């Protein structure tokens, strides 16, 4: 079953998209977006894995003594986790503004309000 990690990443992504599409509360939708983002981390790290490999951090292991996993995908995932958190904060700030202006955070109710 060497395709399970990829399928789990696809499942998490689809579940997150379903959550965003059918959410009745914008804050819940932002949470589902965070789930979608975590799907990309799972896929990235699954691509970079090597059987029997260890992390390419040589502070406590001699370089070259053990096979290592791919560090490039880890660098991508690492920065994205923190930036994703601040982007989530920006989205929540937008939700607060929507709630302040329209008094509701239900996307269906929002689409009916005009002006």
């Amino acid at each position: 079953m060497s395709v399970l990690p990829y399928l789990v990443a696809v499942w998490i992504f689809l579940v997150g998209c379903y959550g965003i599409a059918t959410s009745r509360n914008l804050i819940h939708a932002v949470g589902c977006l965070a789930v979608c983002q975590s799907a990309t981390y799972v896929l990235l790290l699954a691509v970079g894995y090597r059987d029997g490999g260890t992390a390419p951090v040589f502070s406590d292991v001699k370089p070259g003594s053990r096979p290592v996993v791919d560090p490039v995908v880890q660098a991508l995932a690492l920065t994205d986790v923190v930036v994703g958190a601040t982007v989530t904060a920006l989205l929540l700030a937008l939700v607060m503004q929507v709630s302040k202006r329209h008094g509701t955070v239900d996307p269906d109710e929002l689409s009916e309000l005009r002006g």
Partner: protein
Amino acid sequence: MTRRVRLWILAVGGAGLAALLVAACLELPGFGGTSHPYGDRAVRASLARRTANTIASINFDQRAFDTLGEMSILFASVLGTVVLLRQTRDERRAKPEPAYVALPVRRYALIVLPVALLTGLYVIAHGQLSPGGGFQGGVVAATALHLLYLGADYRALERIRPVGLYEVGDALAASAYLVTGLAGLIGGAAFLANTLLPYGTFNTLSSGGTVPLLNAAIGMEVACAVVVLLARFLDQAVEIEQEGGT
């Protein structure tokens, strides 16, 4: 466009996307394969520059320009949040009441705050040796400060955290990252090139040339950004009220 029609469109679109994604997954190389061309070259380049943590070497040395992009995204989203959550004319600021917190919880917060701050600084400082770096350490340090809000109340936190200072710190750290890059340019090599400082001895704090400097700049920038972010959210949730008084 009733809700039912939308659900149908979602179901059909979702099923199509799922089928394509699963088909793609079956074509991917097996999980745990041994062909990682970029990884091997990255490890070799990192060891050549005597940086023990290859991921820090990638983030702050081989792809430092990309991290500059990540940092500007982070800076822009914090800027956007500050603009969005400012206090508008029809709102007033109510003083936060002191909250009752049990003594053991308060003592725990007062003890763990400096320990978490020190751990955050440790994670930043040893970014290019052991697992860690500016991004993680910055968030840990910033979260440590807010233990005061959790252990006591928002008034105590406001007393210890002047927001203006952290906004200036955020901008300073971002420009420090840029200046370090320009220094590479002035030094005759490329922008953000790691040719200025000696690479030092392997697995020590001064190894890796400019990686520790960029690490510290990112650490300070992320810490200040998160403090400013949480300051605006706490203001909105705890202090600022509509004129009608919610």
